[in-house]
């Protein structure tokens, strides 16, 4: 969306706990279409990082190619970003994370970027439990190439071009769960109350965190007959429960409240508070998650909220047993075994 931003800071503007303003988490002006769902997600990312009080330079943003993948330019202007190539953000994020385990990584992708050209990398990043918040800005179409159906478009859904999509949709959260993803959620760009705590929870998760965010494309896929339009999404949305994220410092043990609430303690000390949980649903129980997702699908509902979490998971560095020190900070003194070791190696080749 292109509009003139006021340059002055609102007198009420609040600093977060480390002294940054919300503005410090903003980026350049968006050049996306006015009303594009992606812009709302960018703004949720800004709000989540501001509220979590992460130093902006301790976050790295990565993306593939598409309208969605342009968004890193529009948030976290003081964070480094890498707009990679179409469908290959996961591998670049893998390399980045391996180089420096101390940053937080936000990977943004589109449904075309992830569910088609990038499916291989998406799947394998999950398998390795790469420590990244992986946001799919899901509009059921290829926005940047003018609205072709994507692999997440529902069978029968109609884009602005008017022909019903003949193929079955790939449901990314179901797939991710099946592959062993340790954090799976879906949200809607139009539901900030849900999206912001979801992003915060994902940022605190020590492994791969998928957020499939329905993000309508107002230009090519917001028409009647589309199952990814604002109207359709609002009409069919069904939340697993409401989510709140409480970042706190001290250790908290899981405390099961009566009835339909649940608190999940994360390793960094924060907690996810879930309430109004759907009947019998437990997002830490995979079987329960799978059942819930299938049930929603057969009912034609768009299930949102936290679908699954394994808070005790081990991320990629832990799986590889690499040093606690970021690899990119090591110098020749640490990395280089020296001439004496080399002389010994030489003697093995004589």
């Amino acid at each position: 969306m292109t509009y003139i931003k006021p340059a002055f800071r609102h007198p009420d503007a609040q600093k977060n706990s480390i002294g940054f303003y919300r503005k410090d988490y903003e980026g350049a002006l968006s050049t996306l279409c006015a009303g594009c769902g992606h812009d709302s997600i960018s703004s949720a990312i800004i709000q989540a990082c501001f509220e979590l009080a992460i130093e902006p330079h301790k976050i790295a943003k990565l993306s593939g190619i598409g309208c969605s993948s342009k968004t890193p330019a529009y948030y976290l202007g003081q964070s480094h970003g890498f707009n990679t190539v179409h469908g290959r953000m996961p591998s670049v994020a893998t390399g980045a994370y391996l180089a420096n385990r101390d940053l937080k990584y936000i990977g943004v992708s589109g449904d075309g970027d992830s569910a088609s050209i990038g499916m291989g990398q998406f799947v394998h990043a999950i398998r390795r439990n790469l420590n990244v918040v992986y946001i799919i800005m899901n509009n059921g179409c290829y926005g940047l190439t003018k609205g072709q159906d994507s692999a997440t478009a529902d069978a029968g859904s109609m884009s602005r071009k008017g022909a019903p999509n003949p193929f079955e949709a790939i449901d990314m959260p179901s797939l991710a769960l099946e592959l062993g993803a340790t954090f799976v959620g879906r949200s809607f760009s139009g539901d900030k109350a849900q999206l912001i705590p979801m992003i915060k929870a994902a940022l605190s998760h020590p492994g791969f965190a998928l957020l499939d965010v329905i993000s309508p494309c107002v230009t090519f896929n917001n028409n009647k007959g589309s199952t990814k339009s604002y109207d359709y999404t609002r009409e069919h949305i069904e939340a697993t429960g409401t989510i709140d994220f409480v970042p706190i410092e001290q250790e908290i043990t899981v405390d099961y409240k009566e009835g339909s609430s649940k608190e999940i303690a994360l390793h960094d000390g924060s907690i996810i508070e879930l309430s109004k949980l759907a009947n019998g649903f437990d997002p830490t129980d995979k079987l329960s998650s799978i059942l819930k997702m299938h049930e929603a699908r057969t009912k034609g509902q768009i299930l949102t909220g936290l679908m699954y979490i394994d808070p005790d998971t081990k991320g990629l560095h832990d799986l590889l047993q690499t040093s606690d020190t970021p690899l990119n900070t090591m110098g020749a003194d640490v990395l280089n075994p020296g001439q004496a070791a080399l002389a010994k190696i030489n003697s093995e080749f004589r």
Partner: protein
Amino acid sequence: MSVRINDFVIRFANVNGTGSASANNMFAKSIFRMGVPVSPKNIFPSNIQGLPTWYEVRVSEKGYMGRREGIDLMVAVNPQSFTKDVASIKPGGYLLYDSTKPLYDDRRQDITYIGVPMTALCLANYEVPRLQQLFKNIVYVGALSKLLDIEVKVFEDIFAEQFAGKEKLIAPNLQAIELGRKYIEDHYDFPLNIRVSRRDLVRDSILVDGNTACGLGAVYGGATVAAWYPITPSTSLMDAFDKYASKLRIDAEGKKNYAIVQMEDELASMGVVLGASWNGARSFTATSGPGISLMSEFIGLSYFAEVPGVVVDVQRGGPSTGMPTRTQQSDILLAAYASHGDTKHILLFPSTPKECFDMMADSFDLAERLQTMIFMMTDLDLGMNDHMSPPFDWNDSREYDRGKVLNVRQLEEVKSWGRYRDPDGDGIPYRTLPGTHPTKGAYFTRGTSRDEDAKYTEESAPYVRNMQRLQVKWETAKTMVPKPEIVRNEAGVSEAIIYFGTTAWAAQESLDILEDQGINLNAMRVKAFPFGNEVVEFLANHDTVYVIEQNRDAQFKTLLVNELGEDPAKFISVLNYDGFPITADFVSQTIQARKLATVGNI
């Protein structure tokens, strides 16, 4: 046949997966330990078990390490290929075979048959069936040692080292050597007319393959993130990196100061390299031609977004899946210009394991200094075969050159900075790394056009300025890459050969052969692309230049003509691309034939 000391070729014909490889390696090492230069080569199928495999050892007092045609002695223990193997022996040569069963073939009259009942000897002396099979290989090495006059002490030493900690294995192995020696002693005249004689020619040399050297070079060069996808002939390179890193790169808590990930394909491997390098780690991948094809899109991103990286291309026979277990230098143009749009890349051409080690370590400096992809162009011959090489060495006071990276302090001090500005005029901009400074130095790395300050733009002028700056950087690269080795540069000689990589051995030997025939040529070994001034000058000083390479399409010549604007008529190609390492005889005969043809035309 007259006696030939330290000058012969022996070939072993085995069945894949029967344990012959270690026996054959030991044979080569025994000659090396006699102080005599050896050059062993594996000739193997793209299969795990059951198909014929050969191992060839050239022994050369003069230190000629290229392959040589013509087999003087064949150890034929594979019934499948036996007839062909026997036929491939040079007249006057020898055949060593397992005489447990009688031979039915018609015997050749022009070679000497040496039958040793290897199977029978092992059945009689060992009880475990697996050992009966394994020791057959050691028995023939024993027989060879008697026939070729290799000292038994050499094997005693090798076993003592190999089985340190498992000493009870020494005796049965030595027994197998003795069984072979004794049988020869009792039944044949020895030594043969071809034989080994102790020398002091290898000095402090080592015998090692190029993949091991590259893997080790990556450890010393400070690589911390390695990503790969298995492909012959590059796989053993990552194995070597893993092997040495797991010994030499473990921190106080037992954790790794490196990460290796086997990715889902080569695209992903290259993605990891770019991500890690962008984030300030030294990162590399190793692959072969098919992998480079897949990586192309990312390689273009590396070029345009100026992200460092190192890739080793252990070339094999192409095109397509081609001859996956044979050697070629046929990815030169692919690598030089990989990816769409105007792109070009830096190539290094090591010739020896020592150069593999050095260039690999240096390539990380080069990649970071130039902020671009560096290709290490080796091949199957260099990568997977042992080569005699000067030992590896390292200067302990050496620091890594991380190139133009702004740290926190510099970011504080610098008045204004733009990622793609060129304040030094060398075309190389300053980078910043994620996580460095809370408010300064962040930018959005992208493969789309942008201005000097990394802001997206579709304006022509900044795009063109950027492309021109990349060209300036390319010129700078010419002064940074390794200079060619001017092998021979006699005044008044107007013809020369030029070559690179594994063609070096055959080329150098061919210079001697041609000289003996009165043909005097100058010679230059190119070590890198882009070509620097030294290459240009050498070409300018010669009227005719033979370009020796191991591909069909004269790719290196194309690069010379294309990049230097040289007259194509000046170049004469010497091209070997049958999958086997090029030989000196092939080079010298091709040049000779060419010269005769030219004379005939006058």
